[in-house]
């Protein structure tokens, strides 16, 4: 786990990792959230709605922005404040996503940074983008 502090951050710092959205994760997410929408569970239903097959939960895919910020950028000192996500293309069971984040803005006044996030599938198609705002837990704002 990374342990970047606010003072370590610089615009342009980037981290990326890959994750495979397999059947097990899809089932775990369904059990965890209770989202039983057939678009995620029923191949015939999904194909009938114009998709190639069952669609991976958007929030399952985008949950890896939590990993991006909380483990890597900045890592241990992270407190997630905001995450604005735009879903641009479907993710299917078995897709391998590259999760990438780049520090795009640093605010000295509030000790927060913004990270431009992007997830790309194995075909190079962007499946979602995000603007992630995080603060740091290693030092409280002075009273």
């Amino acid at each position, binding site marked *: 786990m990374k342990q970047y502090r606010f003072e370590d951050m610089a615009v342009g710092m980037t981290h990326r990792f890959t994750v495979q959205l397999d059947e097990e994760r899809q089932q775990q997410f369904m059990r965890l959230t209770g989202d039983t929408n057939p678009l995620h569970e029923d191949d015939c239903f999904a194909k009938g709605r114009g998709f190639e097959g069952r669609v991976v939960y958007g929030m399952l895919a985008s949950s890896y922005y939590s990993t991006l910020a909380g483990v890597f950028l900045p890592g241990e000192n992270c407190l997630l*404040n905001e995450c604005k996500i735009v879903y641009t293309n479907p993710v299917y069971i078995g897709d391998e996503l590259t999760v990438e984040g780049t520090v795009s803005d640093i*605010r*000295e*006044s*509030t*000790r*927060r940074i913004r990270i431009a996030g992007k997830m790309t599938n194995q075909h190079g198609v962007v499946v979602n983008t995000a603007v992630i705002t995080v*603060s740091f837990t290693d030092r409280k*704002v*002075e*009273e």
Partner: protein
Amino acid sequence: MSREEILERVNGVFREVFDDETVAVTYESTAADVEGWDSLRHITLIEAIEDEFDMRFKMNEVTGMKDVGEMIDIISSRI
């Protein structure tokens, strides 16, 4: 830019951040006068004002402002 013009633009930022078209702050307004103006909203507000006026506050200013008038004085000195 006059203090009145800055106040008008600051009010626009408040309305956007609080998602409330009825919000109208004055020079004397404090966090106690605006419903929902808590510490996290304050941080969002500060960053939105920085964006609006293309300026930056100092960290001690963020926690030290006693009212909107003081905020406007700081903005006025930076633009």
